[in-house]
């Protein structure tokens, strides 16, 4: 901890401002209300009382200006692509994106013949966490959120993990 170690009395913690902020961000990932297809049904279910996303500090906000997180839940069509990008740009930094379900990851069942479907939302916006499934269960979405929480609060650890896997 360096020079500040032991300079203050008991019950006083020392940390860096960034760490406090990241901790706060990771515990209050407000998601923009934005659903595209059947994955959105599963996402709404996750937000409702049985799975209760509020426990993890994730609320759905009606405006991208108030949101930190975009859950791309469903099939992204080419017509939707520019709108999706616009919503992403309207969100304030720092912001994160979850690609939920096969469609958002790679086009899903439309990967071959879907003339109107974007083959992966990562062609439009940067994605932090991919959640496979068609659609993923609410538990999977929660697992993805917890993974993202880890990514927000422990950047070094995540980077090290990625380097190890590469």
């Amino acid at each position, binding site marked *: 901890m360096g020079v500040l170690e032991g300079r203050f009395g008991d019950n006083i913690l020392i940390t860096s401002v960034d760490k406090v902020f990241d901790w706060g961000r990771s515990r209050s990932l407000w998601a923009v209300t934005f659903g595209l297809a059947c994955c959105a049904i599963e996402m709404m279910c996750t937000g409702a009382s049985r799975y209760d996303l509020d426990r993890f500090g994730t609320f759905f906000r009606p405006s991208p200006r108030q949101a930190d997180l975009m859950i791309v839940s469903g099939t992204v069509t*080419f*017509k939707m*692509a*520019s709108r999706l*990008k*616009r919503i992403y*740009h309207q969100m304030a930094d720092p912001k994160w994106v979850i690609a939920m379900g096969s469609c958002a990851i*790679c*086009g899903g069942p439309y*990967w*071959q013949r879907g*003339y*109107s479907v*974007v*083959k*992966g939302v*990562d*062609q*439009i*916006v*940067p994605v932090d966490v991919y959640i496979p499934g068609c659609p993923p269960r609410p538990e999977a979405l929660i697992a993805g959120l917890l993974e993202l929480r880890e990514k927000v609060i422990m950047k070094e650890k995540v980077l090290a993990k990625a380097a190890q896997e590469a």
Partner: protein
Amino acid sequence: MTTEELLEILKAKFPGLAFELAATKPDSAIRVPAEKIGEVAAFLRDEPTLRFDMLMCLSAVDRKGSFEVVYHIFSMTNGHRSVLKVFVPTEKPQVPTVGHIWRTAEWHEREAFDLMGVEFVGHPDLRRILLPDDWEGHPLRKDYKTAEEYQGLRTAYDNLNDTPDLAWELP
């Protein structure tokens, strides 16, 4: 009322027109000359014994060489239903609109125009309804070829290794 009975009524009302019975399954249909579909539809709706007051569905089929426009009609007053079919050549796919007879038809015709490229003559607002306005071609045609790109995004599925660079900027 069976399709055969309806055919007899139509033949009596429009003696000059070449109606045909298409004995298709599950519903047999009446083939109507394309240029007269408006008059026939108006008669079917307004004749008290028929009173086909609802267009349940209007769809288009690519028969390779011709397009088939299918009208599923229903009478809520009398409780009977029937099917009309119109054939137009692929080179000149023009069908008169029935939007002024059944308002439902306006959006259905826009959809048939959007995906199949059938042109509905007299339609008040014949724009694409599902695809973006700058889309090229009509995707449900048998000879449709998917474009390589749309607004800089690749339409084909690529492996992660050859995914193009992220398109960051707003259009």
